[in-house]
């Protein structure tokens, strides 16, 4: 996560234009440039929806391939990581937001990019982050009766071991 001009060579033209546009239009956003030539924005979760909407409508980020969460248990936070791309110019952007671990809620992005509906179902299933305003927040892989969120770093499987089924001869 190097800021400044050191990492410029990997950046493509679309990303450079977006970086200039963001610095011009939104002086309060504080974009960084990652080592891999992506623009990285870190926003508070209360601003998440507004920023996402602006990125989609004003800067052309129409494609969201990945949205996920990393559990930094020692720091007591989840980090939301949203990858955005502009299919027309090839611009890349990373949207980050910190969510406190003891209040794991986040406004949903399903209204901005429809694909986030299923990304967020997966996050809810695996990390237990509740997305406010999500239209259909059910678990996606595990059954509804499953206790706990298995990709949290402090998850302990409390179920009794299932007896082995041995064929009687």
């Amino acid at each position, binding site marked *: *996560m190097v800021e400044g001009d050191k990492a410029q060579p990997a950046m493509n033209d679309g990303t450079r234009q977006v970086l200039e546009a963001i610095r011009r239009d939104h002086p309060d956003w504080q974009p960084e440039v990652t*080592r*891999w030539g992506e623009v990285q924005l870190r926003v508070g979760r209360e601003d998440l929806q507004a920023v996402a909407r602006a990125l989609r409508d004003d800067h052309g980020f*129409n*494609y*969201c*391939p*990945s949205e*996920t969460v*990393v*559990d930094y248990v020692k720091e007591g936070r989840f980090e939301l*990581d949203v*990858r955005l791309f502009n*299919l027309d110019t*090839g611009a890349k952007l*990373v949207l980050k937001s910190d969510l406190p671990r003891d209040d794991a809620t986040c406004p949903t992005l399903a209204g901005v*990019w*429809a*694909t986030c*509906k*299923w990304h967020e179902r*997966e996050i809810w299933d*695996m990390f237990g982050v509740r997305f406010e305003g999500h239209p*259909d927040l059910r*678990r*996606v*892989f*595990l*059954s*509804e*009766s499953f206790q706990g969120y*298995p*990709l949290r770093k402090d998850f302990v499987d409390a179920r009794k071991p*299932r*007896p082995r*089924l041995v064929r009687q001869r």
Partner: protein
Amino acid sequence: MGGARTRPEPQTGARENVIELPVLAEGSVEEISGRTRQRARFRGDFEYPGDDFEGPNVNRWQYLPQTPPVEDLLVEEVREIEGNEREMVMNMGPQHPSTHGVLRCVLGLRGEAITRCRPDIGYLHRCHEKLNELWSYQGTIALSDRLDYLAAMTNELAFVLAVEKLLEIEPTERADYIRVICSELQRIASHLLFFGTTALDLGAVTPFLHSFREREAVYDVFEYISGARLLYNYMRFGGVRTDFPPGTDKKIREVLDLLENRLPEYHDLLSYNPIFAVRTQGVGVLSRDDAIAWGAAGPVLRGSGVAYDLRKADPYSGYEKFDFKVCVEESGDVWARFMVRMKEIEESIKIIRQALDGLPEGDARGQVPRFIKPPPGEVYARVEGPRGELGCYVVSDGSDKPYRCHWRTPSFHHVSLLEFVPVGHLVADVVAIIGSMDPVFGEVDK
């Protein structure tokens, strides 16, 4: 759908068939399990392997006979269906042969038309991302084969590219060429399987046999190169495990010649077959805007008229050196997705020929230590797999295992499209639509 046929009125008492189930109370598990087991025996006189397991899961058999699987629908939807006598709920899968594995779709039907579709996944969940955190980086290469088991090479490539970025190493030039050849052969093998299974889903058995004959030839090449036919464990950080053995060039060219001869035969057999065209054209139309918003990728996105291919848009492994074109179809239906894949086979053949001609001398593997500990950081690498954008997000904390590894798998989002694409079509078309998305459940369920 001739006008002469009239649709029979639905029977109003159809709900009488539903067996009323006792409400589960504390301590009543034994009684219910006994009763349901009786019913199961009555239905088929067979025993389930876990029949004597007295645990909380026993009562799931109560859902066996006719009860609608209401827990998979939204509350308001259930209310809507219950208030509407003409609407019926049907379960498709998870053991349906055309669902490419274990997809279950809860379909709302009005007559034979689909009113709603809820895909239900997770039957093949193997805790893939959790295992990534528990295994070393080397082990994860072998594990990533199991993600999309029909395109193991591209899975490995995504992970290896991500870790190489973290380690800040470059693969050798020869390794890049070998990776491109393997990825494209894998794409051909995967698309051949798609050709066969799509035909099979629509009731044509012969194309399946033809495509598997050629797919075997491709897999023979993989066996010759890597020693395995399906799960290769071939990529390594900084290169590939072993160089091409002598004679590989000739073998690959033989396969390409064979394919070029057979592809017109495929088109005669299926692509321009009038029955196939009627079953696929205009069916399952996915608009351009929906395809982008719902995260469709690869042939599904290109079938909807978006010329987006990562090999051109964000080249990796030296794809910018090769001359090929991005295959796009505008109509967005099952036929378009099918034709994109068939054209991609031809483009892949072109790429492999160029790569074989220009294959440089040198080492196929760089000098990388056996045990690696990438510096702390995070990276998102993506490749164009046969099914679309395959992304791998790796977070390192400086230890010998990934702190977090997330896979962005294209099939997961293609299954999510089933929520709205089949609505308005007939039940038989759902099969065609699922087939055209070409989901592989290893990577949907992770």
